[in-house]
């Protein structure tokens, strides 16, 4: 090495040292960002126990949730609920739970209770309250509210608002056709006859207005008196004769008006969101839809004349029957502040004080969890403002409302049921064959879950 090269190589070494330090500093910074950094958050009461609440609402709904959280925070001095809108909440909650850092409670509307409870990811809420309180609550809740939260004798999700469906109809079309809008059909057969008269076509035979077309088999299972699962034998019961009857009725109605023609007509309609719901523009004379439309119609089409009636049952079927789903709050099994989360959930749902919760339910236009909330003066005043809401309350109280059966493969079950309906509507299979195939596949899926965990998953999931 010559004398001249010596200083150059030293300079180079120094240069590499500086670069190395820079890279190391950057790496440390990134590690800190990924692992240790917590963004500053706005806390009104930093001294209180924090209750992290994830939910899926945005815009106006998020504001309603924020107001409820504020009310809770103002009502006591131990906890502070910090709400956060989380997109793709189901998967994120699962990942957070399996990573050991879940929220303290979370609002959900996807059918996750059985699937997550079977995996041990949820806290049974009945273990967070004294036995008498749980018994009293169980007896007071509407049947559907109780059923949607249950999985294998434990209660995992407390509803914050249920959905039920009824028939919305346009009296002006009744009158135009020479029908009396005050005499809504009392049987499904009468509804069919009425639908035939209310359908309208253009000169080329294309549909311009739908009378009534049933879609989504799950909405009609209850009224026909069918069921999807038998907990006693742990068998999928898609092939229950009443279910087959319901699907045969759906396909016969589609055949009558032409399935392709209906598809074509409906594909040209606007979305079903709020103000652009095609019922407003007159695309449907009668349509089955949920209670949230009442407030939407008041807001976006205040002049529209419409009425609401429970779906009439077929001969031998069940009155005031429908499928129900809803929003509910859950506590992940690894939540840090379960007591705080439960205090907040009780507060919101009115477990301890129905009058207070009645106000929250009117803010969101939600169906309450118990008749006491519905009977509260505040809620009754809301029903006086939106009289159409009463039909939904009437349905809510009915023992004939069904929720999706609590099996740990709910999502799969519903997708196969939809497939069966599609297969029957397209004449790919007969209604019976389609339901048989979907039942076989769902039963197999249920049995496929019976492997692995602690050597005998079947027992754990209580799957036959």
């Amino acid at each position, binding site marked *: 090495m010559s004398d001249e090269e010596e200083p150059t*190589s030293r300079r180079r070494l120094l240069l590499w040292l500086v670069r190395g330090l820079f890279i190391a500093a950057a790496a440390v910074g990134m590690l800190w960002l990924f692992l240790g950094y917590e963004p500053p958050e706005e806390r009104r009461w930093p001294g209180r126990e924090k209750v992290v609440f994830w939910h899926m609402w945005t815009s106006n709904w998020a504001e309603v949730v924020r107001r409820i959280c504020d009310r809770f925070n103002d009502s006591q001095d131990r906890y502070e609920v910090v709400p956060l809108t989380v997109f793709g909440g189901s998967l994120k909650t699962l990942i957070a739970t*399996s990573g050991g850092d879940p929220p303290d409670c979370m609002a959900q509307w996807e059918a996750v209770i059985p699937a997550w409870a079977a995996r041990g990811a949820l806290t049974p809420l009945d273990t967070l309250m004294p036995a008498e309180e749980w018994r009293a609550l169980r007896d007071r809740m509407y049947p559907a509210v109780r059923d949607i939260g249950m999985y294998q004798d434990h209660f995992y999700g407390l509803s914050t608002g249920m959905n039920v469906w009824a028939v919305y109809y346009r009296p002006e079309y009744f009158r135009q056709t020479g029908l009396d809008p005050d005499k809504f059909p009392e049987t499904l057969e009468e509804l069919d006859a009425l639908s035939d008269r209310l359908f309208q076509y253009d000169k080329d035979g294309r549909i311009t207005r739908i009378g009534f077309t049933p879609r989504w088999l799950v909405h009609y299972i209850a009224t026909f008196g069918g069921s999807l699962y038998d907990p006693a034998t742990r068998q999928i019961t898609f092939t229950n004769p009443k279910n087959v009857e319901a699907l045969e009725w759906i396909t016969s109605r589609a055949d009558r008006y032409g399935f392709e023609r209906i*598809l074509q007509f409906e594909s*040209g309609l606007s979305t079903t969101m709020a103000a652009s719901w095609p019922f407003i523009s007159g695309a449907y004379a009668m349509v089955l839809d949920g209670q949230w439309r009442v407030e939407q119609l008041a807001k976006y089409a205040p002049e529209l004349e419409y009425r609401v009636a429970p779906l009439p049952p077929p001969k031998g079927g069940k009155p005031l029957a429908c499928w129900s789903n809803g929003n509910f709050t859950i506590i992940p099994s690894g939540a840090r502040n379960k007591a705080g989360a439960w205090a907040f959930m009780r507060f919101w749902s009115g477990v301890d004080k129905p009058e207070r919760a009645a106000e929250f339910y009117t803010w969101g236009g939600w169906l309450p969890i118990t008749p006491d909330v519905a009977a509260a003066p505040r809620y009754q005043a809301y029903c006086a403002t939106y009289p159409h809401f009463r039909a939904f309350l009437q349905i809510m109280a009915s023992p004939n409302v069904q929720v999706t059966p609590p099996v740990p493969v709910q*999502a799969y079950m519903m*997708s196969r049921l939809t*497939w069966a309906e*599609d297969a029957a509507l*397209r004449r*790919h299979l007969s209604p019976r064959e389609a339901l048989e195939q979907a039942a076989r596949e769902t039963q197999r899926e249920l049995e496929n879950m019976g492997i692995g965990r602690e050597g005998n998953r079947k027992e754990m999931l209580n799957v036959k």
Partner: protein
Amino acid sequence: MARRNNLAGWVLVSPVVVGLLVFTLYPFLASLALSFCEYDLFPPPRGVGAWNYETMFTRDPLVWKSLTNVLYYTALAVPLGIVMGVGLALLLDAKIKGLAVYRTLFFLPSIVPVVATSVLWIWLLNPQIGLVNTLLRLVGIEGPTWLASVAWSKPSLVFMGVWGVGGSMLIYLAGLKDIPASLYEAAVVDGANAWQRVRYVTLPMLTPVIFFNLVMGMIGAFQYFTQAYVMTQGGPLDSTRFYALHLFFEAFQYLKMGYASAMAWVLFIIVVGVTALLFRSQHRWVHYGR
């Protein structure tokens, strides 16, 4: 000195090396291990031997359905994409006025994000108010319900795929520029007409590029996902449930991460197998101008 240079080299490439090891190699190997486990995001994964692979071939008819769908799509879309890509490149290689404008126009769709393209095509193929059926109605044809029809859903997606052929067209154009002019001159001297020049000079000289696009197109087709996810969610009647879509549903809707990993490995083996077959076939039809 050399050692110091080596060290400097490693320091500089370390972000890439670490990234590859942590974000590619680790998930790659982890998914292989998970494919022999039952794993629903709740640790620990539970070993189940070859159960997932057995389930795929014996207990899940949708695997076969999704494989059939993907083969159908690959068999139609890849050759059609090549024919359209080469055809467009030949047309746009001609010396005509406004060439740059045409090239831009044909290339443009391929830079539109896939989700945007999918939403656009949902509208174009709308049975009632879509442009395609409106045009068909003008000539007295009542078009099908496209994406809502079992028979037409897959052809609709193939049809839509042709729209994004601009990317491969650009590669063919570059390939055309690479063909020595002397070959055409020789062909003209030998009395070859335009078609003969395309058939005996252009196409053989373009085969390396066609081969590249064939392999890449085939790999892409086997992984076909986004358009089906956005436009049809696998329906109607599972007619657009492609393999990657089925895999996604199993993983993220039904939380069967182990099973989905097994599906991913089977797909990997199929793609490697088909690629190997294509490579073995290339000596018969790919000319490297040697």
